Each structure stands twice: as structure tokens, then as C-alpha cells.
């Protein structure tokens, strides 16, 4: 692990081919995220925030520029290398929770540990985290038996169980009612404050973005200053 910023993005571009048409999703993005920061990225649909999310998470390849996460440049890596680094560095939280429907909450968390090559743990840190998330007593239920808020909290537990350097959250409150949304946002802030977890959250919602230390605005594939 290096001591510099956790994320350094320079001149990042991403162009998709849609049939014969080139779609420029990102047009030269520069972004630096310090360790322990909680950043919200906001912007309208089509602004490129989801593309940035996927590239920072190693799920998509940049067309140009550099994406250095924890000292490693994703832009120079093959799919296989990015997959390996993703296991070690990144945890994802999605709008639709994305839990495996056939496994219990505990097994969903266990699967993340298994894929990362970790032992299934029940140590103090993790127990405290589960208590913090308020899902310790619901671990043996399958997703269909959990409320949206509970599912999202399990998804957060799954995302942080391997101590990722970066927690990426894509509209984590998008499917939740106000009460549950607030619980999840407070949890993310708690995780950031208590565990110094670096969090990068994408949201449409200005109230959600207000929980972050810093808000980054995007429009037309660029970072803009409001």
C-alpha cells in the first residue's frame, strides 16, 4: 500500500461503440481521492458518473488516461489482473442490493470472502461491524425475507468484509424509503468515520450527497464546478 492518495485519475476518457456511433462517456476526467475520504459524485443521467464508477471498480477498461488506485494503474491492466485487484481493493454497493437470491445473508457475505480467498470470519471486528449495520440477527435469512433496508445493509457488510481500500456505492439509497435511506447513509458515514473507510458514492439525491465530505459534480463526461 502506498502513502499517497488512494485514487488518482488523470485524463480519463471512455468511448463506447454503439453500432457505428462513438459515444464519449468520459472526456478527460481528473480526480484525486485521499485515503479516508467520503466523496459523493452527483450529476444528471448520462453525465458519465456510472462509467467512472465502473472504471474505478475495475469492471470496465479506460479508453485513455490513467486510473491509479492504491498505487496500481487499472488502465494498464488486463481483464484478469483487474479482476484480481478488484477482489483485493474494491467493495461494491449497488442500488438494487444485488445479493445472490439463493443464498442467505451470511452466505452472501461468505461468498465475497471465498472469492477473495479469505477465511470465513466471525472475528470481533466483523461482529461489531454487523452490529453497527444492525443485521447480526438477520444473517440466516435469504434476501427475499429481508426488507430493502436490511438487504442494503447486508450488501454493505458484504462490500467491506474483505477490508477493501475503496467502497464504491452506486445510488445506495435509490430503492429505499426516506427512513431506510437515512439509516444507510448514516451507516456509510459511520463506517467512514469509525473505520476510516474510503467511500465514493454516486447519487442523484442532494440530501444523500450532503453526507459526504466532498461533492464532485459531473456533466457531459467531465467534472464541473457548480
Amino acid at each position: 500500500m502506498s502513502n499517497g492518495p488512494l485514487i488518482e485519475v488523470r485524463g480519463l476518457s471512455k468511448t463506447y461503440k454503439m453500432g457505428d456511433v462513438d459515444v464519449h462517456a468520459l472526456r478527460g476526467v481528473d480526480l484525486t481521492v485521499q485515503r479516508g475520504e467520503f466523496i459523493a459524485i452527483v450529476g444528471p443521467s448520462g453525465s458519465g458518473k456510472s462509467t467512472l464508477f465502473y472504471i474505478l471498480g475495475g469492471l470496465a477498461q479506460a479508453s485513455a488516461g490513467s486510473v491509479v488506485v492504491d498505487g496500481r494503474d487499472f488502465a494498464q491492466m488486463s481483464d484478469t489482473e483487474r479482476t484480481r485487484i478488484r477482489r483485493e481493493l474494491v467493495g461494491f454497493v449497488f442500488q438494487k442490493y444485488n445479493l445472490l437470491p439463493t443464498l442467505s445473508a451470511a452466505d452472501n457475505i461468505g461468498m465475497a470472502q471465498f472469492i477473495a480467498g479469505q477465511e470465513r470470519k466471525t472475528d470481533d471486528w466483523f461482529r461489531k461491524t454487523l452490529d453497527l449495520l444492525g443485521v447480526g440477527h438477520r444473517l440466516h435469512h435469504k434476501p427475499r425475507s429481508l426488507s430493502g433496508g436490511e438487504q442494503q445493509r447486508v450488501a454493505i457488510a458484504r462490500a467491506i468484509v474483505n477490508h477493501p481500500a475503496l467502497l464504491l456505492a452506486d445510488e445506495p439509497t435509490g430503492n429505499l424509503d426516506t427512513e431506510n435511506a437515512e439509516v444507510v447513509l448514516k451507516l456509510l458515514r459511520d463506517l467512514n468515520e469509525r473505520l476510516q473507510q474510503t467511500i465514493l458514492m454516486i447519487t442523484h439525491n442532494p440530501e444523500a450527497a450532503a453526507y459526504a465530505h466532498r461533492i464532485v459534480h459531473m456533466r457531459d463526461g467531465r467534472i464541473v464546478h457548480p
Partner: protein
Amino acid sequence: MRDYALINKLVIENLKHRWVRTLLSAAAVGTQATMILTIVGLSYGTLDDMASRSRGAGADIMVRPPNSSIIGLSGAPIPQKVLDYVRTLPNVDIATGTTIYSIGGANSVTGVDLEAFSQMSGGFRYLEGGPFRNPDDVIIDDYWARQNGLRVGSKMSFMNREWNVAGIVEPGKLSRIFLPIGILQDLSANTGRLTSIFIKLKKGTDVQSSVKSVRESLPGYQVYSVEEYASLISINNVPGLKAFIYVVIGISVVVGFLVVFLSMYTAVLERTREIGILKSLGATPAFILGVLIRETTVLALIGSAAGIGLSYVTRWAIMTYVPGSLTQSIVPSWWPVAILVSLVGSLLGALYPGYKAARQDAIEALAYE
């Protein structure tokens, strides 16, 4: 230590989650296993039954026409005088001839000299009725009677004539349908001619040396000890049977391939989002492929077990409804073959869906509704 039990749990839970598809796929895989085991069981069963009925004649030596095949004997090319000659050979206690006439399918009627045949075989054990009394009398075994719903006094038709069932006997003695040899010879235009000759030796006579001496006395004729003949009744000696079994196995592999291909292809489509989730957690293509391969293996094993179970059902059905025409054995030595064929067909079927899943784009998969 990695918790591989969790992967097995994922596999089992996935199969349970879509249990109707799992059951149908396993049943289809099972059907191919049953198809193999039933064909093989019928081959073994029918041939074993044929061998056992040959032994049931009670003879030591069997004389068959020159150039005849081991299986499927019909026609009557042996002149009666050969039987008369055999009776004069040393150490021959009883010699009797039979005439066989095919009455369609794998069924045939055997003409016997009832007195000599009874002396040789120890006699029929009549479950109903008794020996021939009239020229239109026929004796049948219990399997044939049950298959055709016949009782003593029932009428049955073959060779363009109506016959009267005079006796129903225990199965196991040479044939299922018996006529007096003279009548069968006349009706089949084989008067004075035989299909085969059975020889019972005097007590204490060495069978092998007698076989040798009968061979020398009847050059060109096929002379076997009955034990040797029974051992020759095997799949290897039935022309085309092995090739037929291989064709069935080939069809089974194709059926297994198609069923599992469709099943796994649908499973991959349905689980697109879940594949995306696993990829977002850092699962490699090999991991995704491994999960599908495990699912397929479990499906194939469940299917194989069901197929083995179903082969008992087909045996029951055959032995209940057509015991006179077919005999099916359970052949455990072929179980590993059936399992292997199911596995190979299924795994081939899982390859493309597995490849598709492994190559799935994670972002598209996560966006899949």
C-alpha cells in the same frame, strides 16, 4: 482453508431454486441412462434367457447345421437320417431332434418329439392342462400364456391355423411354444428335416471327448457341448448388436447434450445478473464456469441415479406385460457406462452456456433486468 462447502451450497441452492427445471433436466438425463440400461438389459436378458432355455433341454451336446449362426436359428436343413445315425454313436443315451419355425418378430415355435424330449429334459412341469392329445394342440410356457392372456382351452393363431392350448408349462425348457414335431415339419414343408439335434450322453461319459468324436462323425456340422453353446450366446456373437448398442449410446450422448445445453443456456440467461454480481465480487471466468460445471455434474448424477432406478421400472413393465417375447436383466456392470455417458453428454451440453457465462460482460450483466 477456503470454504468449498459454500460453493456446493450455491450449486444446490441454484438447483433447488428452479426445481421444476432441475427435475425435468434430471429426468431427461435419466431417460438416456435408462435407454442405455434397458437396451443392454434386454440384450443380456434375452440372450441369458436363451442360454438358460438351451440348458433346460437337459442335453449334453447340440448338433447344428453347417454354416448356421449361433443366434436366430430357423429352417430345418438337417435330414432325419442324421438323427438316426447320431443315435448309433457310442455313449449316446438319448438323441432327439427339434424343428424351429419363426412366427414373426423374435418369436418362434419349436417342434418336439414329446416323449424323447421329456426323457431328456426331465419332462415338462405342467401348471395347467397336459400333453398334446389332438393334432391342433399346442403347449405354451407360462410367460407366453401370461403375455397373451391364454388359458388351457384358449385358441391361438399362427401359421394360418387356429391352435388349441393343451398345456401351460413352467418356462425354461428350450422354447415358449411347442408343437408335435411331425405336424410342424409337415406344415412348414420340412417333412423329415430338423433344425437341430440334442444328445444326452450315458452317465459318466466325458462330454468334451464325445463332442470331439461327434464332430469327427459329422464333418461340417456344428457340434458343441450345451455349456459351450450357452457361453457362445453373448452380445459379441450377435451380428450388429454391439453396433446397435453403440448407436443407442451415441444417441444418448446427443440427447444429454441437447437437454443440458438448453437447460444451462436458460439458466445462464436467467442468472445473468447473478453472474454479474459474482464478477463484481472478483470471480474469475474459471470460477463462473466451475459453478456451472458443478451444477451440471450434480444434474447428471441425479439423472443417472434416476435412470438406474427407471431401468428397474422398465424391467418390471417388460416382465409383467411381455415376458414371453422379451427378457430384461439388470446389468450393474453397465451402470458406470450409463453414468459416464450421462456425464459426458451433459458436460458437453454445459460447455457453450458455461463459456457464455464466463465471458459475460459484468456491467451488462449487472444492468440485466
